């Protein structure tokens, strides 16, 4: 037969008031869950921005005047859009001092009834001769450029490599699937710009709805700056040199997302701070109550030979048990909630989202759990201390 351990005694004590234990777990769970899910959301947006910006590969985009917002939306969330300007813009941009590379893209919204996609997808035509976004990926992953009528698709397009997708009555072979970025690229289909023009030309015969775009039109120009160039000065120069255009910088994209998140972040900080303080006070109150209720038991334990340290550790262990359970429950529910409602949250806030790597996830889980446990320990510190200082005889008499 084994001796009774501290953990066993603590667990047995918690069993006697299941409702109170449940309430404590629920409050800590709420605090931990809010912290976990909100931090995960913010972290995921940051990661998505990081990966998405790397995929974008450009320092800035030139779009027609009036389409800055829809251009941003397309890049961030993949909201399909189509706007056009003359290809002559490309030459003007290239001629601007400080521009190292410039490449055109053509945006076409797919039709609604495309089997590959939920809603419309964004079709992006790129110029293989000047592109610095898709071409490096093709070189790294396929070791070749795209053939005619081949496409590379974003991770959320419902097709696999080797399969065919159809747009505007034309079949395209999927040459590759891009890694997830959490941004608009995930819901985009990349094809050579000449294929896009051809698809547009044939759409009047092959498709239910024709595409109103002609060769010589482009949607945006992706720009890579020359080393040592100031992005604000370059933006200003392009705006001056190329009338009728607007500039979207990578920084602006990040800022736009950050702005959208800022209200949420402020609200989250306020709510979570209140919930943590509430948990701290509730646990402190509950454990003060427990100490009062169990004075006689504490006195008896001391009479049987329990030291002050043992009584202190017993109380602390009970608090840690409860808050660790609350932390785990909160992490599980917060994580599951975010997983289930991710689409609703990202759409309503207009933010990109990419699950963090496993290591980050594990770190965040541990930090949240430790914070929950630390809260329990801190809140029960005084009640645990005062219980350990009770004089055994007085404790036994007061408990009568």
């Amino acid at each position, binding site marked *: 037969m084994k*001796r*009774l351990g501290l953990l066993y005694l603590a667990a*047995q004590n918690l069993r006697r008031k299941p409702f109170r234990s449940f309430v404590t777990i629920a409050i800590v769970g709420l605090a931990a869950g809010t912290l976990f899910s909100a931090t995960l959301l913010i972290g995921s947006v940051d990661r998505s921005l990081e990966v998405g910006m790397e995929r974008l590969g450009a320092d800035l985009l030139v779009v027609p005047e009036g389409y800055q917002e829809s251009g941003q939306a397309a890049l961030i969330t993949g909201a399909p859009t189509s706007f056009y300007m003359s290809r002559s813009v490309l030459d003007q941009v290239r001629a601007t001092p400080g521009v190292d590379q410039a490449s055109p893209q053509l945006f076409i919204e797919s039709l609604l009834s495309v089997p590959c996609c939920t809603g419309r997808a964004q079709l992006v035509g790129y110029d293989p001769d000047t592109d610095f976004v898709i071409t490096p990926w093709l070189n790294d992953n396929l070791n070749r450029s795209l053939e005619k009528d081949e496409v590379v698709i974003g991770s959320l397009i419902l097709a696999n490599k080797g399969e065919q997708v159809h747009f505007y009555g034309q079949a395209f072979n999927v040459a590759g699937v891009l890694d997830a970025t959490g941004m608009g690229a995930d819901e985009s289909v990349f094809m050579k710009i000449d294929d896009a023009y051809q698809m547009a030309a044939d759409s009047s015969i092959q498709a239910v709805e024709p595409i109103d775009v002609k060769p010589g039109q482009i949607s945006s120009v992706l720009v890579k700056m020359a080393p040592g160039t100031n992005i604000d000065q370059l933006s200003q120069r392009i705006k001056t040199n190329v009338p009728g255009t607007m500039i979207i910088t990578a920084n602006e994209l990040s800022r736009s997302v950050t702005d959208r998140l800022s209200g949420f972040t402020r609200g989250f900080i306020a709510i979570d701070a209140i919930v943590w303080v509430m948990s701290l006070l509730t646990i402190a109150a509950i454990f003060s109550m427990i100490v009062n209720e169990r004075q006689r038991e504490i*006195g*008896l334990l001391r009479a049987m*030979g329990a030291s002050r340290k043992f009584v202190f550790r017993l109380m602390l262990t009970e608090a840690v048990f409860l808050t660790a359970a609350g932390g785990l429950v909160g992490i599980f529910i917060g994580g599951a909630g975010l997983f289930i409602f991710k689409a609703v949250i990202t759409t309503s806030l207009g933010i990109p989202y990419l699950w963090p790597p496993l290591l980050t996830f594990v770190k965040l889980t541990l930090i949240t759990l430790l914070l929950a446990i630390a809260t329990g320990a801190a809140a029960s510190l005084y009640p645990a201390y005062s219980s350990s200082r009770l004089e055994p*005889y007085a404790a036994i008499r007061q408990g009568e």
Partner: protein
Amino acid sequence: MKSTMSGNENMIVLKDLSKTYKVGPSTVRAVDSVDLEIPMGQMVSIVGHSGSGKTTLLSLMGGLTKPSSGRVLLDDVNIWNLSDKEMSLMRNMKIGFSFQFASLMPTLNALDNVRLPSTFGDNPEADLNRPEELLNLVGLGDRMHSYPGQLSGGEQRRVALARTLMNKPELILADEPTGDLDEETEADILETFRKINEDGVTIVIVTHSRVVASRAQRILRMTKGHLSDNEE
């Protein structure tokens, strides 16, 4: 009052022991200048009216409350010179307390309640099968896994008695150990005390009961904090 048994080793020595409490503006002397020596292996009963200071005196003997003045020596050790750890260990290894109320932990079954004192000691050779033997000794071998709420008052007292004996104490301090029990259970418990005392364990019993008190080799009377020989 002073009682000296020359030539015998004393288990308990109280020297000019007092305990006072502040109750509002006045001071109550619950125990007033008590001197006492109890030799090892003696069974002593302390009688007196309610509020006479019997329980306080018992608690002072067991180190459960600190005296306002005077000294408590257990086995020649001044217990208030010990650290909390040493004092706790002394209570654990040397003393068995028996209280006047059902003193079981409600979340532990009978077996775990009896086993509880072994949790606090540091004796690696503690006989961990002893709880079962003790529950058999007090006639509750078939109720080992029952929780206090499932036991009658008498059964709970017997479990508490088994727990008192768990660490083979040299001294038992019993506060009304048979209060509110039926005669049969009272007789069982007193018989157990007698057997333990025969094995050399010192026993101090605080009681209202003449029957219980009469089982002791020595009867003391507590009156308003003063201890004297019983002269009834």
